[in-house]
């Protein structure tokens, strides 16, 4: 149980300011001593200190000792982004018997020292934002977190090796697991593979027993042919709607006797499991070890569904397991956490015309080669044993202009393994590997590469330029880049090691649970290094190839990590809910209901002539605040007083013109942090004020900003974080909100060019380049005269 301590409350707040050097990260640009000096003179500040690393034990002890010694009741910490160390510093003040909400953090690293080069201006800006925080600290109030119970169940999306291991791990810990798979059987890509590198274990032999374990586990429910289509609720209490396609075969009745398939007249249905190299019937068992062990009808190829007559399979089934009337249905499950393990697809190499994929049956992908290895190693065209086989690497990988920009990571090892197995299959065969760089970094990988060279596999460094069918054989042209000469060679079979891409629908399923995809299309983890399997939302995790191409070992590692993260989250049985919620000032409220209409979460109802906020549904977005005509609503930890204090504080900056960037806290603020992390630069005229959403900032706040001396305002909003509203509707309302403020300000003679807006996503954080434009536009805008400011002040005081 966390200690939420006693609070010293006096009429005059006693504030301590603690400024971090961050080992030079801050102090190389910001004159920390000067900031300390300025801070010590700010109203209410009792003590101002600096330290090399405030987050170190020494730094934290400094804060704790100061709180006790000077009887501080507010702490302002100027350091890195609160996304990094807010918890650390809150814990420290709690240890010093202070309520955690009486701590205020100032971001002078990501949003100051890392984005500015002018040392003097950066120092001035740092002083201004510290002043903003000190002023705000005067109005901070102690708050108590609330608690909510959590569902002890997890949905795992994707039944490949990652999904299987995440499910088993969680089920063995006692959690109820729903394993949701889009295909008719679990198993995933790994079930299509021959052997796994570098140990050469049989892929199906090692995975199939785990699949059986999943099927028999009392805590796991496998839901096949299903996809999540809607996710609502919040961390610990998600409600997921699944769309389940009909199988047309009763799983519990089917004995896999194969009588139905024998009767099926549709014998030439492309077989996905065989990577298109073989055919199946319209009613089929996905593969021999399929789980659930039951047949399924492919309605796109079934004669009955296409022509309305046949049903031969139903007649053949002695158990009456086939039901043509089954319909698509929707099911809702309640889960506490969600793990995405949606896997990969093979990139189709057809756009690379010079490789002639599809023009000759003996030009295959590496996945197809896996199936050839498992079916006697005969080439597709004439079912003869190929002698000379070319393995072409980087087909669509490492090709920003002709495929994917990234390295698909495992293709080098796949090619090594395939060449090795080929050589094992036919000792007289002649595998050639054409590579750009041989990437064999991993336990036992380099050793395997050495073994391959010992086995007589030929390696040529050079990206193949052309693959041309040439009568019975295939001609390949390449430069041997180590010799600098062109080589032309004929081959019996050509294997294209194509790029690996996120499986179809990764982006869509990610969006359901607030997980963005990066520029490569794979899911984005919360922190690349330190939270590598976490999603942006609490209780959402990802594992395996959904996060990027990787091998079986790494997928299993991530699956276990994600399972561990989920059980850590659910293990407490309850979750802390932020107390940052809207509340009603009953005396002022006249029950007009504007707020109730506007609330995206329907958290406000009008009861007995007054608005009432439901604290469980309220997400603290603050959209309702500026909408209230009587200012009867307020938001805890972001009250009107607190926000205005910050605005007036920062506006005393000496860096002119001064532009306030009201920045949405979830995406916008993190985007600004990423901008700093990237060491990109913007002018120190920009001062960021964090707000729950930009719509919490109304005309009144903007007027106050101009009255206080600001010269411009920019709204930084998340492109797709509208608390339940669709992206289009959210953006529409955002634009309306901003243009309305522009219109109103024009009445006071303030140039509309002084108000700008931008919507960002995390991968597009560079959109904040707009800050440069903003500063230039404000500099070029019609000046704000003293009369204008005086008039605004007059209106505000009236």
């Amino acid at each position, binding site marked *: 149980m966390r200690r939420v301590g006693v609070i010293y409350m006096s009429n005059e707040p006693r504030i301590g300011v603690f400024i971090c050097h961050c080992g030079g990260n801050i102090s190389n640009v910001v004159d920390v001593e000067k900031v300390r000096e300025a801070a010590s003179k700010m109203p209410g500040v009792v003590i101002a200190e600096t330290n090399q690393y405030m987050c170190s034990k020494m730094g934290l002890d400094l804060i704790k000792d100061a709180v006790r010694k000077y009887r501080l009741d507010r702490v302002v910490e100027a350091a890195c982004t609160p996304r990094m160390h807010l918890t650390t510093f809150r814990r420290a003040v709690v240890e010093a018997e202070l309520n955690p909400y009486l701590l205020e953090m100032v971001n002078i690293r990501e949003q100051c020292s890392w984005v500015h080069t002018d040392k003097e201006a950066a120092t001035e800006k740092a002083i201004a934002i510290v002043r903003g925080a000190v002023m705000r600290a005067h109005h901070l109030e102690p708050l108590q977190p609330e608690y909510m119970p959590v569902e002890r169940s997890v949905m795992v999306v994707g039944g490949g090796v990652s999904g299987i291991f995440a499910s088993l791990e969680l089920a063995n810990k006692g959690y109820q697991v729903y394993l949701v798979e889009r295909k008719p059987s679990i198993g995933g890509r790994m079930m299509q593979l021959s052997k796994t590198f570098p140990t050469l274990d049989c892929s199906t032999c090692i995975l199939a027993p785990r699949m059986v374990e999943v099927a028999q586990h009392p805590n796991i429910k496998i839901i096949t042919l299903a996809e999540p289509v809607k996710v609502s609720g919040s961390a610990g209490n998600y409600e997921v709607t699944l769309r389940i396609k009909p199988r047309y075969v009763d799983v519990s009745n089917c004995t896999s006797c194969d009588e139905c398939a024998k009767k099926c007249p549709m014998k030439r249905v492309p077989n996905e499991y065989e990577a298109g190299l073989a055919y199946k019937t319209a009613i089929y068992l996905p593969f021999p070890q399929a789980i659930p062990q039951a047949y399924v009808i492919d309605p796109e190829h079934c004669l009955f569904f296409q022509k309305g007559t046949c049903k031969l399979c139903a007649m053949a089934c002695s158990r009456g397991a086939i039901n043509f009337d089954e319909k698509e249905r929707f099911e809702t499950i309640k889960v506490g956490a969600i793990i995405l393990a949606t896997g990969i697809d093979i990139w189709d190499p057809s756009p690379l015309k010079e490789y002639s994929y599809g023009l000759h049956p003996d030009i295959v992908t590496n996945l197809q080669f896996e199936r050839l290895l498992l079916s006697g190693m005969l080439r597709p065209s004439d079912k003869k044993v190929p002698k000379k086989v070319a393995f072409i690497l980087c087909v669509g990988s490492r090709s920003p202009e*002709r495929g994917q920009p990234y390295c698909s990571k495992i293709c080098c090892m796949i090619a090594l393994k395939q060449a090795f197995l080929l050589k094992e299959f036919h000792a007289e065969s002649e595998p050639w590997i054409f590579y750009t760089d041989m990437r064999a970094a991993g336990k036992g990988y380099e050793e395997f590469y050495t073994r391959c060279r010992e086995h007589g596999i030929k390696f040529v460094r050079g990206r193949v*330029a052309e693959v041309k069918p040439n009568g019975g054989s295939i001609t390949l042209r390449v430069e041997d880049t180590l010799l600098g000469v062109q080589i032309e060679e004929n081959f019996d079979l050509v294997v294209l090691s194509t790029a690996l891409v996120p499986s179809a629908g990764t982006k869509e399923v990610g969006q359901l649970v607030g997980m963005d995809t990066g520029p490569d299309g794979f899911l984005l983890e919360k922190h690349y290094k330190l939270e590598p399997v976490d999603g942006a939302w609490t209780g959402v995790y990802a594992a395996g190839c959904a996060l990027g191409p990787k091998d079986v070992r790494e997928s299993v590692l991530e699956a276990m990590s994600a399972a561990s993260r989920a059980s850590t989250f659910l293990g407490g049985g309850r979750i802390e809910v932020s107390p940052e919620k809207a509340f009603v000032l009953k005396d002022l409220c006249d029950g007009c209901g504007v707020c109730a209409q506007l609330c995206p979460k329907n958290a406000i109802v009008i009861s007995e002539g007054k608005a009432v906020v439901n604290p469980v549904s309220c997400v603290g977005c603050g959209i309702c605040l500026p909408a209230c005509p009587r200012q009867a609503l307020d938001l805890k930890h972001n009250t009107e007083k607190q926000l205005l204090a910050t605005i007036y504080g920062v506006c005393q900056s000496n860096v002119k013109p001064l532009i306030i960037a009201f920045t949405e806290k979830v995406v916008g603020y993190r985007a600004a942090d990423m901008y700093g992390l990237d060491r990109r630069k913007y002018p120190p005229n920009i001062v960021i004020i964090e707000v729950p959403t930009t719509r919490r900032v109304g005309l009144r706040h903007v007027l106050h900003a101009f009255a206080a001396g600001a010269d411009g305002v920019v709204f930084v909003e998340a492109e797709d974080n509208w608390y339940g509203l669709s992206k289009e509707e959210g953006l529409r309302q955002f634009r309306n909100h901003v243009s309305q403020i522009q219109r109103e300000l024009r009445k006071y003679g303030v140039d509309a060019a002084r108000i700008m807006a931008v919507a960002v996503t995390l991968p597009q954080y560079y959109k904040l380049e707009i800050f440069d434009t903003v500063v230039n536009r404000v500099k070029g805008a019609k000046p704000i005269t003293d009369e204008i400011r005086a008039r605004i002040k007059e209106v505000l005081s009236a």
Partner: protein
Amino acid sequence: MSPVTHKITPEMIDPTFEATLKKRLGEKGKKIPLCFQCGVCSGSCPVAFAMDFTPRQIMELIKLGVKDLVLSSSTIWLCAACYSCSVRCPQGIDLKQVMDTLKEMALEDPKYGKAEKAFYEKFIEVVRRNGRVDEVALYVKVMPKSAVMRNLGFGLKLYQKGKIKLSPSKSSADQVAKIFEKVLATEVQKQ
């Protein structure tokens, strides 16, 4: 085997060479440092067999800043402008444009491409006059007198078989002349 028999010494390196080339190529120049020596350009090149450096090696020499070897290479003159390299480059480097720019740079510097420059000028002169290539006239202009005399017999055989003509047709010469005028006008404008 590899034609790279040169030893690259510090005095051969012009540290501004790559930057100059990039600047001249504008937007396209930004891609030059992306080359990772995969060799798809040289593998695709139909005339690489005749070059002293393959296109990939030229890219490497550009990176190293060995201006002298690049501008005196046969590569830039042999480039047939087939665009295979530009189309297939996984990094989107327009090698054909690089070769063109290198040619321009060589022509601007009296140290390089003397013979090529002379050939280009004479070629253009012939085309401008006749509206098309006149092999006999071009041969006589480009080759030294002794070579012309030595090959008279061979030329006579070609003539007898109708492979070359002494007075080629001049049809559409006026239209070609117009093209020349227009190109020259734009060149002047550019300057």
